[in-house]
């Protein structure tokens, strides 16, 4: 098995773990962590498959660097929203969605 394929398979496994966490974990912090694992899986595939004959290709590395910045921004926004939700509901999970039951505040 080539190194590239090994990286790619590990990335796919991380992506799957992250996906499961994002969908199944009710706790918001766990969801946010799961998203980061999912993203890391995609980055690993990008860098792993991107190498040519064992030498690293700089282009996917630059892309992953950009991707990490994006992921940090997304994580920060997610944490800020989770914090707000905790303040508003006292819970670190998504409440049941009942828009009709909500008192109208518009």
């Amino acid at each position, binding site marked *: 098995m080539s190194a*590239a394929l090994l990286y*790619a398979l590990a*990335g796919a496994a991380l*992506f799957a773990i*992250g*996906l499961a966490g*994002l969908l199944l974990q009710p706790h*918001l912090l766990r*969801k946010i962590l799961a*998203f980061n694992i*999912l*993203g890391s*899986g*995609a*980055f690993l*595939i*990008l860098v*792993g*498959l*991107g190498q*040519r004959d064992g030498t690293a*290709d700089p*282009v*996917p590395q630059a*892309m992953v660097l*950009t*991707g990490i910045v*994006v992921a940090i*921004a*997304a994580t920060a*926004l*997610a944490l800020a*929203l*989770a914090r*707000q*939700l905790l303040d*508003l*509901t006292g819970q670190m999970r*998504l*409440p049941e*969605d009942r*828009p*009709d039951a*909500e008192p*109208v*505040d*518009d």
Partner: protein
Amino acid sequence: MTDFLDPLPWLIVLPLAWGTLAFLLGPGRGGRLAVAAIALQGVLALQLAGQLIDSGARVYAVGGWGASLGIDLMADGLAAVMLLLTQAVALPLAVYARGYFAAHPKGRALFWPMTGFLLAALNALFLSADLFNIYVTLELLGLAAVGLVAIAGGRQPVTAAMRYLFATLLGSSAYLLGVALIYGTYGSVSLVVLTPLIHSGAPLAVTLAAALMLLGLLLKTALFPFHFWLPPAHGGAPAPVSALLSALVIKATFYLVLRLWLELFAPLTTVAAAQLLGVLGAAAILWGSVLALTQSRLKMLVAYSTVAQVGYLFLLFPLATLVPPDAADSAVQGGVMQAVAHGLAKAAMFATAGSMIVATGRDDIGHLGGIDTRLPLTLFSFGLAGVTLMGLPPSGGFSAKWLLLSAALETGQWWWVVVMIVGGLLTAAYVFKVLRRAFLPVAEGDHVARVPRTLEFSAFALALAAILLGLFGAPLLDLLAIGRAA
């Protein structure tokens, strides 16, 4: 023309600049700046469209570097149409938002910076020439949109924003995984380089990549059954935000689905996959319309109407895939026309809904009595927008549905005609549900206040544009044809 005055990069730099400036000016400031800057963006988009009509599709190398070291921007007819739509919707909405937030300050603090970033992301997305750049713009767009949903605070909007954030992040991660597989196979992310490389015998990884990217984008476009996040997010945000999100943000991901389907992954598309997209579209039309009918809150009704109208966009795929070129052209024109018509009409509808909510002090269809005498122009605009959504002549919605219908008849796929007709009737039902209430006298204990005239006239401008699109939409279709022949 010197490079410095090229409209292409300025369409991205300008909203980014005024968004940042609005943030630095302080909470709630920068509205006038935004209106002026968006007007300028509109001029730039028109200038770019003029250049395309004169000399065909364009490429711009950012900073003079050029791919693959630098980033290329690309503009063809489809991109130009979407850019025109974006500025045409944003300008009246910016005027509207100034009036709306003056009357209703909740959520005003960060509206202008976020809107600047949102428009920059939209313009950049339409001009992107490579798959990775598209990923970055998708994320920028998603983060700005989620931020806008949450700006008003409160339990329901923040919950909706959180759910929207997870949905949009999942969508773009799936897209990124697809990009990784494509890069691993071909060593490039440039659309121009990749398009000739992908053929029907492409490796399995490429088919998998195509499926992942399309799935991610469908989730972000809120196509049935991925629509769960849309109604609370669009229905819970302040009215100008709802209008921006429903009119433009979901169109951006639809634009990408269309571009990938017709260009990059065209050799991989199958009739079965196209029919599946059509079936999901049909299900969205029926399910969204029925749920819109059952809503008691006005903005939720309009939000479910978006779920339904997104369905029409996806009817173009079975009508444009592996069929004679004439029918395919007509289907694509119909789909894009629907995107433009819905963009204008839905912005008008959310704006008028916002005015009615400001006037009655609550978001409840049961308490709209008296709107007809107090806000006649607003109600008229709501009706005009409804005419476009129903697809009645002479609106842009009629042209769109006519083009889709003729493609359906030409390719012998009569079942989509049935879906469109039933969808039109259901749309009429939920529009009249609102109109009927609005023509009742003011209920006892209710008070209908007047709203600022800017609210009424900006919404009317949007609704009128959606109607005029049906009468004068032909140049838009000529513009759309640029660059697609190659």
